[in-house]
C-alpha cells in the first residue's frame, strides 16, 4: 500500500491542515458575531394544567374516583387562588419554533417565545460531536476517543431503555401484572375481565428464559443462558428455513421462468419494432444465462475446470457486474448521508444556509458575505 494514515506528514502538509482547521474556527467565531448570530434554539412554552375532579360514589361514600381535567391557564390560576395547589398537576411543555418566529415577535415587541438553553447547549454539543468524529479522519485523537466513549455508553443505555418500555412492559408486564401495569406504568391499557387472564401465564416461559439469559452475568451460571440461546436459534432456524425457501428459492425460480423471445413494445415503425424486440429478448436471454452461470459458480461438488470452469467464469463476470452496481449504489447512499451532516452544520448550527425558511432571509445573505 502506497500510503497509510500512520505515516508522518511533511511540515507543508501539516501547515495546510492547520489552515483548514483554523479557517473553520474563524468562520464560527466571526459568524457568531455577525448578523443574527448562529446556533440558537427557540421554544414556545405551553402550560399543561390539570385539576382533579373527585366524584364520590352514590352507593358508598368512602369510595371515590378521581379524574383529571385539563384547564386553561386562567381557569387554573383561579382555581389555585381559591383552593391552593392541592389536587392540581401542572407542567410546561416546550414546542420548538423556527427562529423566524422569535425575530418577528421581537420586532412586534415581546411575546412568549424564549431562547431554550438546554436545546441551544445541546445543539452546540451535537456540532461538537459531529466535528469530533470527523476529526478521526485526520488521526486518532482525544476528542474522537471521547466521542467514541459517549456513543458506546449512550447507545447501550438507549437500547436497554427502549427495549424495556416498548417490549418488556407492554408484552410481558401488562400480561403478567395487569393491575400493577395499569396503575403505575401504562394507565391507558384495558384490564382483562377479572383483572387477570390465566392464559397469559404462558408468558412465564419467556420471563424465566429471559432471567436465565441475564443469569449469564453471574459467575458459574453461564450454562443457564444456553437454554434461551437454544430457543432463539431454534425458532429462527425454523422460521428462516421456510421463509427463505418460499421467498428466495421458489419465488426467484418462478421469476426466472420467462420466455427468451419477447415481442417489442415500440410499434411506431417496422424498424423500431425489430430493434425493441431484439433489446427486450436480449435482456431475457442474458438474465437466464446469468442466473444459471452463477449457480454453476456456487456449485461445490465439481472443480472449476473445463466446461464447468468456463461457465463458472461467466458466472463470476455476472457477480462482478452485480458488485459494481452495488458499489455504485452504495456510494450514492454514503454521500447523501455526508450531505445531511454538512447541511446540519451549515443550516442548524452555523445559520449559513436556510433551505427550510426557518429564519429571515437576511441571515442567509449575511452568510453570503463569507
Amino acid at each position: 500500500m502506497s500510503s497509510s494514515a500512520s505515516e508522518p506528514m511533511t511540515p507543508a502538509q501539516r501547515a495546510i491542515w492547520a489552515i483548514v482547521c483554523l479557517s473553520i474556527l474563524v468562520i464560527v467565531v466571526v459568524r457568531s458575531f455577525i448578523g443574527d448570530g448562529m446556533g440558537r434554539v427557540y421554544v414556545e412554552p405551553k402550560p399543561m394544567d390539570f385539576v382533579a375532579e373527585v366524584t364520590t360514589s352514590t352507593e358508598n361514600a368512602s369510595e371515590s374516583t378521581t379524574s383529571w381535567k385539563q384547564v386553561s391557564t386562567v381557569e387554573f390560576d383561579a382555581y389555585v387562588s381559591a383552593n391552593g395547589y392541592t389536587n392540581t398537576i401542572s407542567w410546561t411543555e416546550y414546542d420548538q419554533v423556527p427562529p423566524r418566529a422569535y425575530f418577528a415577535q421581537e420586532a412586534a415587541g415581546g411575546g412568549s417565545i424564549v431562547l431554550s438553553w438546554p436545546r441551544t447547549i445541546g445543539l452546540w454539543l451535537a456540532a461538537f460531536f459531529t466535528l469530533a468524529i470527523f476529526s478521526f479522519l485526520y488521526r486518532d485523537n482525544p476528542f474522537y476517543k471521547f466521542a467514541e466513549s459517549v456513543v458506546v455508553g449512550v447507545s447501550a443505555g438507549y437500547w436497554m431503555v427502549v427495549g424495556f418500555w416498548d417490549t418488556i412492559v407492554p408484552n410481558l408486564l401488562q400480561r403478567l401484572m395487569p393491575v400493577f401495569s395499569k396503575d403505575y406504568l401504562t394507565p391507558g391499557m384495558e384490564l382483562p375481565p377479572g383483572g387477570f387472564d390465566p392464559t397469559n401465564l404462558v408468558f412465564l416461559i419467556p420471563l424465566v428464559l429471559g432471567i436465565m439469559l441475564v443469569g449469564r452475568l453471574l459467575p458459574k451460571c453461564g450454562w443457564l443462558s444456553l437454554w434461551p440461546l437454544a430457543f432463539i436459534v431454534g425458532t429462527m432456524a425454523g422460521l428462516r428455513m421456510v421463509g427463505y425457501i418460499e421467498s428466495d428459492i421458489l419465488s426467484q425460480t418462478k421469476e426466472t421462468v420467462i420466455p427468451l423471445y419477447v415481442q417489442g413494445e415500440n410499434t411506431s415503425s417496422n424498424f423500431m419494432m425489430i430493434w425493441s424486440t431484439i433489446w427486450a429478448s436480449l435482456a431475457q436471454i442474458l438474465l437466464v444465462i446469468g442466473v444459471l452461470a452463477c449457480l454453476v459458480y456456487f456449485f461445490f461438488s465439481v472443480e472449476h475446470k473445463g466446461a464447468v470452469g468456463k461457465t463458472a467464469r461467466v458466472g463470476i463476470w455476472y457477480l462482478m457486474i452485480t458488485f459494481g452496481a452495488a458499489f455504485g449504489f452504495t456510494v450514492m447512499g454514503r454521500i447523501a448521508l455526508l450531505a445531511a451532516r454538512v447541511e446540519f452544520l451549515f443550516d442548524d448550527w452555523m445559520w449559513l444556509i436556510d433551505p427550510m425558511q426557518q429564519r429571515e432571509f437576511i441571515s442567509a445573505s449575511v452568510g453570503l458575505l463569507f
Partner: protein
Amino acid sequence: MRTSSIQTILLTTALCALAGGQVVLGSSKARASFAPPAPPTDLVANDLPWDGGGTVQIDWAASATPADQLKGYEILAHELEVTPRDAAIETDEAADRAAAEETQSLLEGEGIAPEDARRQAALSTPEFVSPPEDVSEWSSLGIVPATQTDYQATGLNKAGVYLFKIRAIGLEGDFSAATASSGEIRPVAAFFNGRKLPLLITLILIASAVFVFIVLARRGMPMRIRKIAGLAAVDEAVGRATEMGRSILYINGIQDMDDLQTVAGVTVLGRVAKTAAEYDAKIEVPTSRSLVMTAAREAVQSSYFSAGRPDAYNPDLIYYVTDEQFGFVAYISGMMTREKPAACFYMGSFFAESLILAETGNSVGAIQIAGTANPSQLPFFVAACDYTLIGEEFFAASAYLSGQPDQLGSLKGQDVGKILVGIVIIIGVTLATLQAITGSDSLEAAVNYLVNVILGS
C-alpha cells in the same frame, strides 16, 4: 392471489367434491332491457378448501349483456352479525323453539342447570341478523373485468359467516340487479394449508437431499469438494500474527444469533481459535450482541480445550461492546489503530461498517479475510480484503473448514438443490419460449401450471 383461470378450474373441479356447504342458485332469466346490463347468474360460492382460512372461491355465469358492453362485475359481501342473545331467545319465536329443544336435551342428557343450559344452547345455534335488503349497504370486495367469471375473496374473517352477491356494471357505471344471495359461507381454516403443498414438497426435497448425503458421508462415502480460495489463507494469517507477536481480530458480524450467518461465523471462529491455540496466538473477539458473545465464548473455549490448551483460554478477550452499529464500529476502528492486529477476520452479517473495518484494517497493514452473505457489502470486502468468501461460499466454508463428513455431506445436499433449481429453470424457460414463439394454448397451460401452482405457493 394471482390465480390463473386454469388453476381455478383445476381447483374447483377437483375440490368441489370435498367441499361441504356448496350452494348453487337457480339462474334468473336475463332481462332484455337496454339501460341497465343484465345481471350475472348461477352464483356459486365455496369456502376454499385446504387453505389457511379467510378465502372464499366465487364463480358465476356471465351476464347476458356482451362482455364488451360491460365495465366489469362487482363482488359484494356481507358478514352476518349474530343477533344479540336475549333477542334471539326471547323475541324470535323460531329461535326460542329451537333453543327450548336444545335446552331440554341438555337438561336431560347432561344434567346442566337450566340457566346455563339455556345460555349454552343459545350459543350453539347462533341466529343471524338478516342481511340488509339494499345491496349498497353490502361491502364491495372489488371489481373484476367483464371477461372474468370467478373471484377469490381473500382476507375475510376466519370466524365470520358471509353472504355474497354479484352484479354487473355497464359502461356508463350503471349497475345490474344483483344476483340472489349465496348461502352462508364460513371461510374456515383447513387442517392443512393446501396452497403451501409445493413449498412443503420443496422443503422435504431439500431437507432430505441434505440428510441423505450426511448419512452417506457418515457411512464413509468420500465427499470431494472443490477448493475454496481464501480458506487456505486462514493458517497463513494466524501464523503471521504469531510471528509478529500481534493479535488476531475476529469480528463475527453485527447481527444476533438469530442470523444464520452469525451461526456460521461462530463455526468458523471455532476453527480459527483452534489454529490460534495451536500457534499460541492471541485472539480477540469483540461482539455487538451479548448473545453472540455467549456463543463465541462457548466455541472458543471448546476449541482451546480440543487443542489441548484449556489454560490459555481467556474469556475476557471475548466481550460485548454495544448493540449500536456505529458505536460498535467507532470502538473497533479506534481499537484497530491502537492495537494494530496482524490479521483480521470478518465473518458474519455485515452492513455499512464493512468498508470502515476493511479500510481501517488495510491502513494498519493487517491480512484480512472476509466472508459474508450480504451482497451489498461484498464489493468492499472484495476490493479491500485479501480474500473474500462470497455468499454461499461462506456457508460452505464453515463446512469445509470443519472437514467433518456431516458438514461436507450437507454441502453436497445443497448442490442437489441447485441442480433442481437449474432443471426447473431450464424446463420452464424452454416451455415459455416455445409458447411465446408458437402461441400454443396447451403450452401456455403448462407454463401457467408450473409458475402458479408448482412455484406459486
